């Protein structure tokens, strides 16, 4: 008996972009980028806008090349400026994140501590850091340490709350199982609670990176005579639009690099997690 010919049905894969699609998207992104930059350049060339205020892609590129070549800008090379800012970020982040993880862990485990101090910490958190920054300058001076202080405070809260949340959300049965097997408090902390809380802690650490950079730049705006943030501000005040943009690009580059470092650490430490469907979402 004859049967009707079967139609071939292509299985649909709704959540995975075909590689053709991915390449297409990439090409599209590049094209849009070029179009935007080209329009900008042309608009400036046609004097539709002031080069002094807006600059243009070619001018910025030229400026960037000369700065990276070691040009002295306002007394130092750009690398000195970057170094200063980076130092503030690194020290402030290290101190802030360490304190936050330790305290976040303690607050997560000790209910009394939470009851007593969490309202205070929340209250402090709600004060805009911009308002606190001059206080740091007053107390710690206009040098390195006031910036470190501001970075510290920016990083601390986000890492603290994420750490505490991670510790609080550890499944109680995980802890029970270990304790019944005879694990000491220390063994339980090290082998159960911390690994279980690690995903949240890492999210906090990743979110802390852009906050740290904002803190450093903020500190330099308020009271400094060097550093990338200061350079951006000074460029603005000098109507040096190219310098301004170059500075911003460098800042974006640093932010991205540091974020990637945390991403790598995260991927290494969280191999045990089931992979998310499709592309993973990374926090800026």
């Amino acid at each position, binding site marked *: 008996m004859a049967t009707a010919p079967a139609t071939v049905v292509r299985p649909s894969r709704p959540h995975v972009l075909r590689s053709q699609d991915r390449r297409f998207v990439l090409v599209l992104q590049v094209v849009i980028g070029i179009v935007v930059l080209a329009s900008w350049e042309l608009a400036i060339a046609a004097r539709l806008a002031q080069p002094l205020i807006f600059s243009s892609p070619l001018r910025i590129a030229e400026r960037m090349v000369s700065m990276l070549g070691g040009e002295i800008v306002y007394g130092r090379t750009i690398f000195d400026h970057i170094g200063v800012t980076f130092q503030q970020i690194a020290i402030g982040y290290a101190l802030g994140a360490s304190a936050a993880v330790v305290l976040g862990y303690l607050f997560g485990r000790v209910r009394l501590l939470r009851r007593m101090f969490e309202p205070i910490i929340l209250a402090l958190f709600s004060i805009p850091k911009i308002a606190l920054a001059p206080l740091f300058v007053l107390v710690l001076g206009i040098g390195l340490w006031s910036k470190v202080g501001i970075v510290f405070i920016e990083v601390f809260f986000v890492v603290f709350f994420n750490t505490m949340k991670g510790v609080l959300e550890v*499944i109680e*049965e*995980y802890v*029970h*199982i*270990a*304790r*019944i*097997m*005879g*694990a000491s408090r220390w*063994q339980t902390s090290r*082998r*159960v609670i911390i*690994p*279980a809380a*690690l995903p949240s802690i890492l999210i906090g650490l990743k979110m802390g990176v852009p906050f740290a950079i904002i803190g450093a730049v903020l500190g330099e705006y308020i009271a400094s005579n060097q550093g990338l943030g200061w350079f951006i501000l000074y460029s603005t005040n000098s109507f040096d639009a190219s310098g301004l943009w170059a500075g911003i690009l460098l800042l974006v580059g640093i932010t991205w690099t540091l974020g990637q470092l945390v991403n790598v650490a995260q991927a290494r430490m969280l*191999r*045990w*997690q*089931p992979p998310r469907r499709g592309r993973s979402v990374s926090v800026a």
Partner: protein
Amino acid sequence: MTQPVIEYEHITKQFWSQGSEVTALQNVSLTVGENEFTSIVGPSGCGKTTLLRLAAGLEDPTAGQTVFRGVPIDGINTRAGYVTQDSNLYPWMTLRQNVEFPLEIQGVRAGERRDRADEFIRMVGLEGFENHWPYQLSGGMQKRGSIIRTMVYEPSVVLMDEPFGPLDAQTRMVLQHDLLRIWGEKRQTILFITHDLTEAIAMSDKVVVMSARPGTIKAVYDIPISRPRDVFQIHNQAGFTEVYGEIWQTFRSEVVGSGADTAAAGQGGAAAGVA
């Protein structure tokens, strides 16, 4: 009755839930004997999990005391093993690391740890999966992992809270079989919670029937079915039908009375009727 291992003495346990007092257990006294496989069955909410948690030291009674090998329990009881309802394998450890974990806690050398863990992994047919993450294992495999994680350090008493609850019927029978095989070799004292009367009878030397909340002991039955037991065909083993019928009579009023669906009651009646 063999040597008493766990003795519940006039246990009453009350919780405060949403503003009102809930009595989970009311004057419960029970003795669990050494080397015996004892099951506790009862309707939902009858307090059987609470009894297990009391033996593990995770709860304190409101009145009465739990005695473990002659010593009243005070705080977490590390002398008994505890298998939770969910597998709860640590997601950040591989299967092997999970199974080795209690041995590591107890300071066993790495080489010996691996040998003992691998022995149990092989025993339940999980060889080849030692380096898998828990998320890569099926529910039944995780369940096996969870059980051998407790068995590997050979506690003389094992408390199990509806360990096969969330599994499908076939997997459940296979794991019942695995558990009985492990138990056959080591003969620990096992206190096993289940809502499934057939499972309780198939596995145990004794079945304790609890009433609906507030939980009390309605009856304790000896299971005279000879070992080894064939869990896959337990209905056909000599003595099963009689003892099931007998226990079901006691059990049904608690189950039906607490609002269980009529299908359960019908099932019980039909099983009792099948020769």
